[in-house]
């Protein structure tokens, strides 16, 4: 065997260009990211209704109490992160309070990072509440419609929520940050019918688009921003709307949405890799 311990080299063969393709993929993407990083997926004049809808829905909350159901996952959060931070900026600017709850482990880890980011950005402690992690997925959601404020939660916001029933119904709206596991669908199915008076708003990655968009048509979701394009639209609206004071201090809304050039290049390269794999001898549908 000529296989070395550190490097994977096929016995009796020299490394070929094909072996270098994955690394070449990343190098090209790196160049595209650094060169074209400022060219974002921008609105083309006709701003998407999803983005304006979320902006209007969050504006309507004013100084209300917002429940942030944070269940993003690390695989898709990069896509929606700019919109999530822009939404926080909008809510903080308008004087809303934010209470975070998570039903997935990954969501909890990301939520903790965002809460800390808001705290270190200067958002007052009495406008932030960590409701923690709730195990049980759908069952936990049903339980949240009866009680969502844990006994350990303290502060004026926690007390005010307890005085209003300490359940999802104590909030003025729910902002669902969806991932590939728990997302808008679970909230619409479990919480929507039980607490119909609380509007559900959502930000979700493009993978959730086919699943979540029908709920917007039936008004089960009051607003939905889904996918990189709508994320870019929404960030642009908030950036134009923001004053350079509290919102910018609280969260950097200059966090840019995914850059268009590397994403486009990535799609082209992915198609090339797929075509190369399909053309290989022994690929599905070809004779071995």
């Amino acid at each position, binding site marked *: 065997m000529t296989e070395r311990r*550190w490097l994977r080299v096929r016995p009796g063969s020299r490394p070929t260009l094909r072996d270098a393709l994955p690394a070449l993929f990343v190098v090209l993407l790196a160049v595209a990211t650094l060169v074209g990083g400022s060219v974002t997926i921008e609105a083309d004049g006709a701003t998407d209704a999803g983005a304006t809808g979320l902006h209007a829905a969050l504006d309507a909350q004013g100084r209300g109490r917002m429940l942030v159901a944070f269940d993003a996952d690390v695989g*898709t959060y990069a*896509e929606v992160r700019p919109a999530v931070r822009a939404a926080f900026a909008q809510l903080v600017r308008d004087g809303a309070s934010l209470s975070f709850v998570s039903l997935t482990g990954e969501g909890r880890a990301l939520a903790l990072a965002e809460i800390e980011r808001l705290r270190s950005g200067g958002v007052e402690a009495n406008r932030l509440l960590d409701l923690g992690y709730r195990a049980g997925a759908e069952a936990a959601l049903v339980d949240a419609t009866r009680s969502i404020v844990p006994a350990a939660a303290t502060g004026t916001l926690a007390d005010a929520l307890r005085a209003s029933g300490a359940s999802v119904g104590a909030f003025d709206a729910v902002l669902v940050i969806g991932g590939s596991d728990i997302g808008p669908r679970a909230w619409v199915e479990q919480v929507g019918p039980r607490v119909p008076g609380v509007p559900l708003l959502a930000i979700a990655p*493009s993978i959730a688009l086919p699943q979540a968009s029908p709920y917007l048509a039936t008004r089960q979701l009051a607003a939905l921003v889904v996918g990189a394009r709508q994320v870019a639209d929404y960030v642009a609206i908030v950036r134009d709307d923001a004053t350079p004071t509290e919102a910018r201090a609280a969260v950097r809304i200059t966090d840019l949405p995914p850059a268009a050039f590397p994403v486009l290049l990535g799609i082209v390269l992915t198609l090339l890799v797929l075509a190369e794999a399909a053309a290989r001898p022994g690929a599905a549908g070809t004779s071995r």
Partner: protein
Amino acid sequence: MSGFGWPEGWATLGVWVAAAATLLSWSILVGARRPFLWAQRLLAGMLTGYLALLAIREVLVPRLVAPLVSDPAGNPLAVVALVLGGVLVGSPWLPRWMGAAPVAILVGGTAAFALGGAMVGTVLPQIIGTVPPPGVGLASLGGGLATAVIASLVLIAFLHGAPRSAGMRLLGGIGRWLILGGVGVWLGYLVLARIVLLSDRLAFLGTEWLGMGR
């Protein structure tokens, strides 16, 4: 201060650790296995530790141990949960039917919530939403009809075991292709999400780590 309230030096260290972990993960691209395995094991170990800590700190202690210690008589459900959890943990040494009981409750409860929610929250409202109200335009009517036809074809594709005529087999075949089309769309969105993630990591290395474009 960093986003986690650490001193500045620690934030820089955090960026370097993140950059090193990213590069270790990507080492497999040039065929280097061992650094990739280090990154893989680091991730697996940290994930296991994190989930264990999450379960202990945010589930077991506040929702099981604390209620049992403070007021066991006032929390009968916590006693039931403790017994079921104990039976589940001890199932390798217990009769099979005993170990099956907590699993059955778990599966049954999850299915009941999921199916009940899907029916009340998705199926019925979406059917109602598909029915066009009187006086709607042709486009809306066409959309509703297309939804009904696609849903019917996909349902026919799931008819297994029953004898079917040639026509039904044809419709079932079309339904299967529609399912494949749906899976293809989902896969496309998944690829897009991963490309954005990769681009985001590259941007992190370029800006946060190397300080380019600041």
